[in-house]
């Protein structure tokens, strides 16, 4: 299966079924920019997991890229991760009490 065809990009074939590392999202958008059409469809078929970093990078790039990006076959787990990021609540810091020792 070709990862790129016409105005579509099949993300599983380009990268992996598990989308983990932030840099690979940047690579995805480099590939998207090689597509000549102004509208690009990103096909998430077969994607099993997505990291927070990948999802964040994807959404950020989608906002700034000069093409219209739409998605299809987005699995529930990916939708939930996109939502978790788009909520964009202020980051909470944990307050940890730790016992200090020497080793």
């Amino acid at each position, binding site marked *: 299966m070709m990862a790129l065809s016409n105005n579509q990009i099949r993300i599983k074939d380009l990268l992996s079924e598990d989308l*983990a*590392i932030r840099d690979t999202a940047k690579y995805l958008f480099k590939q998207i920019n090689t597509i000549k059409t102004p509208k690009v469809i990103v096909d998430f078929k077969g994607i099993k997991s997505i990291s927070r970093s990948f999802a964040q990078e994807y959404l950020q790039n989608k906002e700034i890229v000069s093409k219209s990006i739409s998605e299809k076959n987005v699995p529930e787990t990916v939708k939930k991760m996109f939502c978790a990021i788009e909520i964009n609540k202020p980051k909470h810091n944990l307050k940890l009490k730790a016992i200090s*020792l020497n080793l």
Partner: protein
Amino acid sequence: MNLNLLDNYKKFCDIRENSINTKKIDLSNETFLYPTTLLPLINYQKGNKLDCIKPKSDKTKDYFDIMNNLQTNSKQKTSIPFTELPKDSIEGNKKIAEIFELLGDGKNVGGENAFKYMVNEMVTNIYEHSKFNNAYTMAQKYPNKQFLEVCFYDDGIGIPGSFKKAKIEFDSDKETIMKAVEGTSTKETTSTESPKRGYGLSRNLKLIKDKFNGEMLIVSNSGAFHLHEQKQYKYDLSKKYILAGTLVSYRYKFPVMDVNIYDGSIE
């Protein structure tokens, strides 16, 4: 008795120290080896090209060979042996998919979402912040003891180095690790290069602590952090225990069915 993660790291340090005089890794009396000992040990052995006296126990020797990729495991796959994470991130992404497959996509160990989320965060940290030359992972599911142990090591700049790069000074390495696990972001500072390492570590710590009631160990340069039985400990490390780079291990009991990570835990 199951040694905890810190004890297992200390075992690595003991073996490493003994090797300084003998120029050999002596495992002859070892009867049980966990990833948190084995991963830094194999890296140390390979890096220093040291001979190894293998365990006398056949079972332990076989296990050592399997985890060191000297022998294949013909039985059911319950482990990820010493596995290098490629420097190229595209290849790294493919390697992660292989790792997931080896551990059954997280079935019974928190479910696909939670298991993969935690591994992804760890691997992402390594690729984004460590500036590593070498990075490795190792994991073992213990069906009888009913727990999973996952370990990562990279020889990069370490958490203190990551903060230093962002021009954030701390009194000790352990304090930088504490800030990282508390989720300190340096975005508010004028620095253009934020360590950001805290994000992944703090969310993972929260999941391990609150959702899995598990254990976590982070060792980086001369500092360490240990979550054990819901208590946190931070350590200044003496010379014997210092580690160049960063080691992160976590351990939790299974079976744990699908843990919901989308309930605010990862925001």
